[in-house]
């Protein structure tokens, strides 16, 4: 992991409350799917902490993040259209490397959809079945990227304004027996993981957890994730965990 200054290539709105940030590093950094970075968001508004953002895509020294504006920090970041940004990356334990021809379900809910794309980029040898859930049509984005890298891609919205109507885990549940995936990789809100745990039977599943962070590199112990072995650091022992380990 390294701390470095990066150049903002673009930071554009791609859906409601959703931005795509592309940065250029001064060197190539090796990234694992599911890892994240800490990014400075601008101290001008009294915001001192960096913000953790999951990596959506990368190529050589170009790294892409997709984030939603939920608080002061991400709002401040969304207003930064150019210039330099301080980053620490790559951070955390990502998703496991996938076997040749593995049949993989990607399950994403809301902004949890975006980090899953890094798995497609890191594992071109696997076969992906993507299940992507959004609240409503206004938040839907990046679907075409998943369609290109997946054997099959299902989109659902809570209100039915795009794709199927309903929760994405319910839709996955209907087809799971027939699909028989080797592994499920998921990112999204905790209720989605709770629902997932009920339907997977013996299929191994890895989930990317979210928790408020301060440092992102393991020093402060604020991002506690409750596991079978007690509290561990989401930033260092995670953010990706075997679903069987996490107390949901």
């Amino acid at each position, binding site marked *: 992991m390294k701390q470095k200054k990066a150049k903002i290539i673009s930071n554009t709105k791609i859906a409601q409350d959703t931005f795509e940030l592309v940065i250029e590093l001064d060197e190539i950094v090796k990234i694992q799917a599911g890892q994240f970075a800490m990014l400075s968001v601008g101290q001008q508004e009294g915001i001192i*902490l960096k913000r953790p953002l999951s990596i959506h895509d990368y190529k050589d020294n170009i790294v892409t993040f997709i984030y939603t504006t939920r608080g002061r920090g991400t709002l401040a970041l969304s207003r930064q259209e150019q210039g330099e940004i301080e980053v620490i990356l790559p951070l955390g334990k990502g998703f496991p490397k996938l076997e040749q021809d593995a049949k993989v379900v990607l399950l994403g809910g809301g902004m949890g959809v975006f980090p899953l794309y890094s798995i497609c980029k890191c594992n071109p040898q696997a076969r992906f079945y993507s299940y992507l859930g959004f609240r409503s049509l206004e938040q839907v984005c990046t679907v075409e990227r998943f369609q290109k890298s997946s054997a099959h891609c299902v989109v659902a919205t809570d209100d039915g304004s795009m794709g199927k109507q309903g929760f994405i885990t319910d839709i996955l549940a209907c087809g799971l027996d027939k699909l028989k995936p080797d592994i499920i990789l998921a990112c999204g809100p905790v209720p989605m993981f709770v629902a997932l745990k009920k339907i997977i039977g013996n299929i191994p599943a890895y989930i990317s957890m979210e928790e408020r962070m301060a440092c992102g590199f393991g020093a402060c112990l604020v991002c506690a994730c409750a596991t079978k072995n007690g509290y561990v650091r989401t930033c260092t022992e995670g953010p990706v965990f075997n679903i069987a380990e996490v107390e949901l």
Partner: protein
Amino acid sequence: MSKLEVKLGGLKLKNPIILASGTCNFGQEFSQFFPLCKLGGLALKGTTLLPRAGNPPPRVAEVYGGILNSVGLQNPGFAEFANIHLPALASCGCALIANIAGSTEQEYIELARLASDCPIDAIELNISCPNVKEGGVSFGRDAIAVANIVGKVRAACSLPLIVKLSPNTADIAENALAAQEQGADIISLVNTFEAMAIDCRTKKPILGNVTGGLSGPAIKPIALRMVWQVYNKVSIPIIGIGGIASTADVLEFLLAGASAVQIGTASLIDPMLPVQIAEELAQYAIDEGLTNISELTGALEV
């Protein structure tokens, strides 16, 4: 002797920059960014006799110019500290300070005795953690409580003893004096301020523990005032702590009476900052023609 080397009683530091307890775990996370020998010292994670799980998340909330935390002294317990974490720091090249925290007098005494046999340079007595229900800050609430625990720990401690004071008290200078009278070698101040953050949309506290400790630039002016007041009351050396985020901040704490400083919150945001500050301090000492940085301690012109 280098321009940055400072002596705080029996504690020798190659420069006055120490990473604050609770924000540097057991040092290894920072060694990914720089060799630890660049630091004056490491105040290691607050350690209790037995492992402690800590408080339920969320444990951090950001406020204007600062952060609240409620980690709640999560730590692996003294045995793992002594057998795993300390050996990993054996040749790190900076002073090691064990921060000990108890729930009972007996636990503090036992920890002081055990830590005195460890390859460390000083013991920091944590009687100021605001995030645990029993013990912690209740031992540091007033001068009588401070005198009581410092006296008992002093008798069990054969290393330089630092007493870390809480700002959540009526008169911090009285508490410092009580610590000095009971044999403390060094005073470190301040720990975090008891504080709270609320999410008005959910009508709930942001922290799982409801309240937490405020740190960061927001507390610096109060910490500076407290260091100044303590400096005017005691004769033992002071380690200044509270919102330090730049070389100028360090100089301000030295002028107010500190002999060394601890950096906490700012090093979580910029892990390279402590090293950068140490380098800038060295340059400052040259530029100002100082023989030693300690010439600044208490040099405030009032």
